[in-house]
């Protein structure tokens, strides 16, 4: 069997598995079903699919990118895209009525865009202006919209029903790359950003795989906490207290 034929067969098998899991999604109930994850069977199927795509394509490409480019170049690429993100974070910090964070984001974007050569240099961080990353899903959360069930998206990975609903706004309004009119340039930027992001996460995914007993539920629980800062208890002096008797 040629590599191509084997890949096709494998892709068909994975697609069938994902579809089968999706159809079974309605039956996700049992004594140990997690209330925050009613689509667990579908989500697990999609996670397997994403992991396989990652193993076959994304991770090798990201590793190649990491090994073939010098660190300063990758830092510049990462800074460039993060700077575009700061502009959208500014808007969302405003929408969330967080004036200090909005101010920081605005200062970051203008300083880095002008003095940092279009965002390639992160001068604002060196000045001590912190990044406050926000997106429209978190803005909805601030407005009181609950995350809804956990939802694993094809290729994009962990999300929630709320954040999936917010994605079109993030992509079509908030994403400056989307406003580039030249199609080849725009697509190249999309591709580069995707690879750069994956390359940045190469270390993190290894740590995650080593830490978890069940990487699926570990990722899910951590993701839901991060998307729900209100009940994460991070700003609370009592957070993380444990009972003394054991």
């Amino acid at each position, binding site marked *: 069997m040629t590599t191509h034929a084997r890949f096709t067969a494998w892709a068909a098998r994975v697609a069938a598995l994902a579809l089968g899991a999706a159809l079974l999604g309605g039956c996700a109930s049992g004594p140990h079903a997690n209330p925050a994850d009613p689509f667990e069977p579908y989500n697990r199927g999609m996670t397997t699919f994403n992991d396989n795509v990652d193993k076959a394509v994304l991770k090798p490409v990201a590793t190649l990118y990491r090994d073939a480019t010098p660190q300063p170049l990758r830092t510049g690429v990462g800074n460039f895209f*993060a700077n575009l993100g700061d502009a959208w974070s500014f808007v969302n910090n405003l929408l969330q009525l967080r004036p200090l964070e909005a101010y920081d984001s605005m200062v970051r974007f203008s300083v880095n865009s002008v003095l940092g050569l279009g965002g390639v240099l992160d001068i604002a*961080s060196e000045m001590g202006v*912190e*990044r406050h990353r926000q997106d429209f899903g978190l803005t909805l959360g601030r407005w009181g919209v609950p995350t809804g069930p956990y939802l694993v998206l094809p290729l994009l990975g962990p999300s929630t029903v709320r954040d999936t609903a917010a994605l079109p706004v993030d992509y079509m309004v908030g994403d400056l790359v989307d406003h580039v009119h030249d199609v080849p340039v725009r697509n190249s930027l999309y591709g580069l950003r995707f690879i750069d992001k994956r390359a940045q996460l190469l270390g993190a995914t290894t740590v995650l795989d080593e830490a978890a*007993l069940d990487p699926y539920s570990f990722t899910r629980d951590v993701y839901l906490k991060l998307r729900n800062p209100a009940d994460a208890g991070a700003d609370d002096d009592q957070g993380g207290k444990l009972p*003394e008797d*054991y």
Partner: protein
Amino acid sequence: MMNRRTLTQSAAALAAAAWLGWAPAALAADEAPDALIKRLSSDVLETVKGDKSIKAGDVDKIMVLVNKTILPHVNFRRMTAAAVGPAWRSATPEQQQRLQDEFKTLLIRTYSGALSQVSDQSIVVRPLRAAPEDKDVLVRTEIRGRGEPVQLDYRLEKTPGQGSGWKIYNLNVLGVWLVETYRTQFAQEINAKGVNGLIDALAARNKANAGAATGVAGAR
């Protein structure tokens, strides 16, 4: 004459050794919790930054460092008991010991893996919001490097007794409490296969991690 001089030197050396050995223990008992975290973090970060083989990804070497520096200041028993939850009480002492040992190995490995990615980070300890008589405090820190700072908070308890001092019993990474996250992981295993099933799952994970590390080291 010669004999006497040697004797004096030996006595001085012994005294110095005793002093050195005793001093850190005495220090630890009186050290404030935020000062302790600051000292431990800086120690580990500086060593990691200054060691070429650690930078090349030698996780085993970091594990030795973590064992030596951090471990004496962690209450693993309390951490494990809380992560295991209600099943901890019904577990036999042998099961409790095995749970604690396997969980410890897992956490040290993960922590060391994260540390192996340290490049130019530094640690900032935020001001402590606690009364002097508090026996249970939260120490907030931030790891600053490129991009966003990473939030890393520690929950510490004051343990009685000579030379014990403050002990870490929970850890918050980026807003997520470690024990809480593992409680869900552990409950999943216990519900499916009982306490022994959890022990087996932890042991298998540790074995896979150790194997993966050898594979990586061999490939380098």
